[in-house]
């Protein structure tokens, strides 16, 4: 977990087939209140383009992208 | 009564044929002037020559043969008989040497063409009474089948009357006189044609045929013309 961001929900999207990470996160974001944050963990390199584009389309905000060796973590704040 | 006979046998026939030819022609021209689909609609594997396979699919109905063989038998019998029926009617206008390659008496088929058509039409109609075809059918499917059945049945009666129960008052001579008078735009009804005991068969036959012809261009019977281009789309 990132130190400066308070995470309200963690979603494990590792190794999911296309387009499940986006589908899941779209659903998941509705489970938290506006202003709360989701941590989405994925292994898909494509997610690095998909998530920012999804956030822009759906009107949410990616606070931070944490790229590790095998994992990619997105911290997404529900805006709308 | 005479006036009704007259209207059905002359003006209505002209109107029916006008609607049939103009309607079909205009609709086909309009359909074929629509823009083509931007992508192929082919089903694979690809088989060549494609147009040959499209003809095969159109005239031999292989998909029906495979999935519903009984229906296929009736469909083939029906469509072949329908073709013979058209030839038979052309011969009621005049002599065509080409059709007499196989020597036969006019009207061809010894009455069996009409019989096969009638039975096939009843089969087509009755199969729609059972689910799931009943649930798929809409009124026009029944109307068309009933209309065709009535047309064919009364038409066949005229044929059967002569051949099977020796009623010879109305014969090919009278029909030829009537049909050619219509064709040469000098319509004429001889008293032999309208006063015979079997005249009502003729009148009903022509009446239902007129209705069918007028409905044709606006119905799914347009598949007569569209089946080939559609099968070509599937073959690529």
């Amino acid at each position, binding site marked *: 977990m990132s130190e400066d961001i308070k995470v309200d929900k963690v979603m494990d999207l590792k190794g*999911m*087939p*296309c*387009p499940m*990470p*986006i*589908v899941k996160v779209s*659903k998941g974001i509705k489970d938290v209140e506006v202003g709360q944050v989701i941590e989405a963990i994925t*292994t*898909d*390199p*494509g*997610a*690095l*383009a*998909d998530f*920012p*584009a*999804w956030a*822009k*389309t*759906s009107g949410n905000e990616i606070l931070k992208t944490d*790229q590790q*060796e095998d994992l*990619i973590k997105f911290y997404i704040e529900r805006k709308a | 009564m005479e006036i009704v006979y007259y209207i059905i046998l002359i003006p209505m026939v002209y109107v029916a044929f006008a609607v049939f030819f103009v309607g079909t022609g205009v609709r086909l021209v309009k*359909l*074929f002037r*629509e*823009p083509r*689909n931007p992508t*192929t*609609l082919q*089903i*694979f*594997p690809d088989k060549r020559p494609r147009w040959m396979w499209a003809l095969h*699919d159109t005239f031999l*109905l292989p*998909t*029906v043969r495979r*999935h*519903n063989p009984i*229906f296929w038998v009736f469909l083939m019998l029906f469509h072949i008989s329908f073709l013979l029926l058209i030839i038979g009617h052309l011969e009621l206008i005049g002599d065509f040497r080409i059709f007499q390659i196989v020597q036969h008496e006019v009207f061809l088929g010894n009455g069996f063409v009409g019989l096969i058509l009638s039975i096939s039409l009843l089969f087509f109609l009755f199969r729609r009474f059972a689910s*799931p*075809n009943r*649930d*798929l*059918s*809409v*009124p*026009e*499917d029944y109307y068309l089948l009933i209309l065709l059945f009535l047309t064919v049945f009364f038409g066949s009666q005229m044929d059967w009357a002569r051949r099977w129960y020796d009623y010879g008052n109305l014969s090919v001579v009278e029909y030829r006189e009537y049909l050619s008078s219509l064709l040469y735009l000098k319509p004429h009804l001889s008293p032999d044609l309208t006063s015979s005991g079997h005249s009502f068969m003729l009148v009903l036959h022509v009446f239902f045929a007129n209705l069918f012809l007028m409905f044709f261009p*606006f119905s*799914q019977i*347009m*598949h007569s013309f*569209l*089946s080939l281009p*559609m099968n070509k*789309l*599937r073959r690529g």
Partner: protein
Amino acid sequence: MDQKTRDELLKLFQGKLNEAMKFYLETCTRCGVCTEACHVYASMGQIKYIAAYRHEIVRRIYKKYFKGRGKIWPSVGEARELSEMALEELYEAAYSCTGCRRCMVYCPFGIDTQMIMSIAKLLLIGAHTEPEILTLLADTSVEKGKSLELFKEGFLTGIKNLEKEVVKKWKIEAGETAIPVDVDGADLLYVALAGAHSIVPAAAIFNAAGENWTLSFFEAVNFGAFVGDPTKTKLILDRIVKEAKRLKVKEVCICECGTAFRVMKQLSGKQPFEVSSITEVHSRYLREGRIKVDKSKFKEPITYHDPCQIARNGGVIDEPRYILNRLSDDFREMSPEPKYNWCCGGGGGLVALGEDNLDFRMKSAKVKADQVQETGAKILTTACENCHTQLSDLNSHYEMGVEVKFLSSMVADALMQ
């Protein structure tokens, strides 16, 4: 529904009426030969899933507004008004149809149900009653193309991180790049999906074959086509075409995704490059001896699910069989003829609806599960992401006890150095 909305929807309808569409709408005789064709009907037995019934939902509206008959004698064809109710029926018809076109093999005229359903899908978009998630996916995809520069850096790092996975499968010479990106003048542009599973095995095989290839920035799948939005479909397609032209590649190779392959192959028009599926490319490598595979790798019986958009609708039928016969001595056909293969039940965007329609997807694909089990195979392979997801769901739902695998990853696993 108010008049203005209806007029707008009818305008959308009108826009779909080309020659083929009119043939399809004018000709059906409701003969019922298509009854047995649909996997949903075969599995669930409800009339509303028969292809001809689905057509009629659209056709009734056509009869009402686009045929003279609809004005003077609407009842003859049961012409129906475009209403909220009609939209509900359209939804039911369109989103229970996977667009597999199996019914087209049955129809004596070859009526294309998928094409008729595209009207339904477009009307639903017009009325904003389409599945929200599909539009979101399409919009996300469009957005990605618009702001490429924004995502480029992150994407490239992500790809770099994958390279060691590729090298695990196939060692490369020092100085070579395991996943080349943006290579001007490459022979082959590989368009993958977002997931690593779509990139790693493919990369290993390209490297093994010594291919001069490059990975696309974009993902292959066309969500525009799923939701049935022609404008978005074109947008998503065009940027791959543009990239291929910019890099001057000779071939665009589409990953294991049925929709992506069919859209690219059939909708891209005449281009200076060839479009091929990854299955075709792999079979070519094997034929030409550019890669070698170890037959002892997979010992259990294998069966192959033909993805509808790739086989029946895309023409890639012999190639997977060629590959499988090189991978195994026990390859078992599922259907006597590939064009009769049952759809997995997940096409047309249904899988992307996720949990929402899981119950329907499982019930409607019972025949598929049965078909797989009848082969007795232990490995179920396919060449489409969508099918793979759906087949995996079926596998656990029906406890089929098979292993669902991508054909490309089987090839990658069996590569001989």
